[in-house]
C-alpha cells in the first residue's frame, strides 16, 4: 500500500467515548480534510448518536452501514435498517439508538459555504478516552498535536486543562489555563460551572483566575 491511500475496517477500530456513545474516530484516524466523517457503533438498546443539534449551516448525512437503528429527528421516529440514509439540516434535534447488536452508523457533516476546519471534538473524545484509561502520555500527545495544528484555538488548552484536572494533575492543569491569556469572554462561565475542574477548584490559583 502506498502512502497516498489507507484502508479502515470500522468494527476493528478502538472506539472513543463521547457523551454516552461509542465513537469510531474516522476523521481523526485518517486525517480526512474536506468534511467531518465519523462512525458510531452500539449493541441493541445502546445509544448510537448522542442527542444534539448542529449549529447554523451544518448539514449531516447519516448512513446505516450494518444492523438496524431507530432514529429520532425532531418529534419523528423512524426505523432505519442497513442501507438507510438520513439527511438532517441544522437546528433539528436528532439522536439514534441501536436495534441490533453491532449496529454501525456512518456520518458526514460540514457547513454550507465554509471550508471544513477539522472537527476537534472528535480528537478530544479520543484524548478523553485515553485519560479515562490512565494513559496520560497518550492523551497529552494527541492534544499537543492538535494544539500545534490549531494554535488559535482556546478550547484545546482549556480542554487539556480539564483532562489534567480530572487526572488530578493540578500543576499541569494550571499550566494549560495560564495559556488562556488574554481570557476569552466565555471562559469565566466555563470556569464557574465545569465539573471537570472540581479537583482544582479549591486551589488558590483557581481563585486567582476568577478574579
Amino acid at each position, binding site marked *: 500500500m502506498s502512502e497516498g*491511500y489507507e484502508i479502515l475496517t470500522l468494527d476493528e477500530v478502538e472506539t472513543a467515548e463521547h457523551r454516552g456513545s461509542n465513537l469510531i474516530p474516522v476523521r481523526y484516524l*485518517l486525517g480526512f480534510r474536506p468534511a467531518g466523517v465519523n462512525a458510531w457503533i452500539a449493541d441493541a438498546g445502546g445509544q448510537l448518536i448522542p442527542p444534539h443539534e448542529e449549529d447554523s449551516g451544518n448539514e449531516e*448525512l447519516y*448512513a446505516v452501514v450494518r444492523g438496524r437503528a431507530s432514529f429520532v429527528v425532531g418529534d419523528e421516529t*423512524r426505523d432505519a435498517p442497513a*442501507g438507510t*440514509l438520513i*439527511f438532517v439540516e441544522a437546528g433539528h434535534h436528532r439522536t439514534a439508538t441501536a436495534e441490533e447488536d453491532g449496529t454501525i452508523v456512518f456520518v458526514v457533516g460540514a457547513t*454550507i459555504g465554509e471550508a471544513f476546519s477539522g472537527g476537534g471534538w472528535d480528537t478530544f473524545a479520543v484524548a478523553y478516552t485515553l485519560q479515562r484509561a490512565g494513559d496520560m502520555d497518550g492523551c497529552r500527545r494527541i492534544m499537543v498535536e492538535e494544539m500545534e495544528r490549531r494554535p488559535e484555538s482556546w478550547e484545546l488548552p482549556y480542554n487539556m486543562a480539564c483532562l489534567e484536572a480530572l487526572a488530578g494533575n493540578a500543576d499541569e492543569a494550571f499550566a494549560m489555563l495560564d495559556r488562556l491569556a488574554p481570557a476569552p469572554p466565555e471562559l469565566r462561565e466555563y470556569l464557574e460551572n465545569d465539573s471537570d475542574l472540581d479537583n482544582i477548584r479549591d486551589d488558590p490559583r483557581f481563585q486567582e483566575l476568577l478574579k
Partner: protein
Amino acid sequence: MNVTHIDDLAGIELADGFVWRPVRRHFGIKAFGVNVYTPGASGQIVEEHTERQLGHEEIYLVLRGRVKFTIDGNEHELGQGQLVFVRDPSLKRAGVALTDDAAVLAIGGKPGEAFEVSAWETWFAAAPLVEAKRWDEVIAVYNDALAEKPDHPALLYNLACMEAQAGKKDEAIAHLQRAIELRPEFAESAANDEDFASIKDDPRFPR
C-alpha cells in the same frame, strides 16, 4: 424526516457500466459531496479515474456486498463496513463489484475549500439524455446547473459541447467563448474536441 434507502434512490447507469445514485442531489445537500454507486451490467462500481484535476480527497465506504478496489495498481477486496481513503488525488482508483448487491458510499471534496458542486454531476445527470440525443432536455439540465453557478467554466464548456451537437451554433460559440475567458486552457481542449466538429470552421470559433 428526510430519509431514503439506497435501494429506493433513482439510479443512472453511465457508459462505463456503473450506476450513479445521486445522494447529494436527492437531498439537496450543499455542504459536502456524497453519492452512492452500485454495479451496472459490467460489474464496475467505481469508474477508473484520478482526482488530479479537482484535487479531491475521497472516501469509498462499502455499505453492502463485496468490492474489489484497485488503487494505484494495488488490489484490495473490501466488504461491508470497510472503507478506502484515497488521500492523493493523483492516484488512479477503480472498483468492481464482487457481489450483485454491492453498494458504495463515496464522499469527496477539496481540502481547505468550501464545497462546490462539481461539473461532473451535471455531466452524469445528462448522460442518458445525451445518449438519446435529446438535446433540448440536455441543455435544460445544464441551464439548471448554471442558474446556480452562472460562471462555472466547466459547465459552460460542456454546455457549449452539447449546443454544438444540437446544431445551436450561436449559443455554442457564445458559451465556449465565455468558458475560455474564465479558464484559458479550455482553448486547447476545444481545438481537439470532436464535440465541436460542427462549429470549428466558424470564424468566431476561439483559437
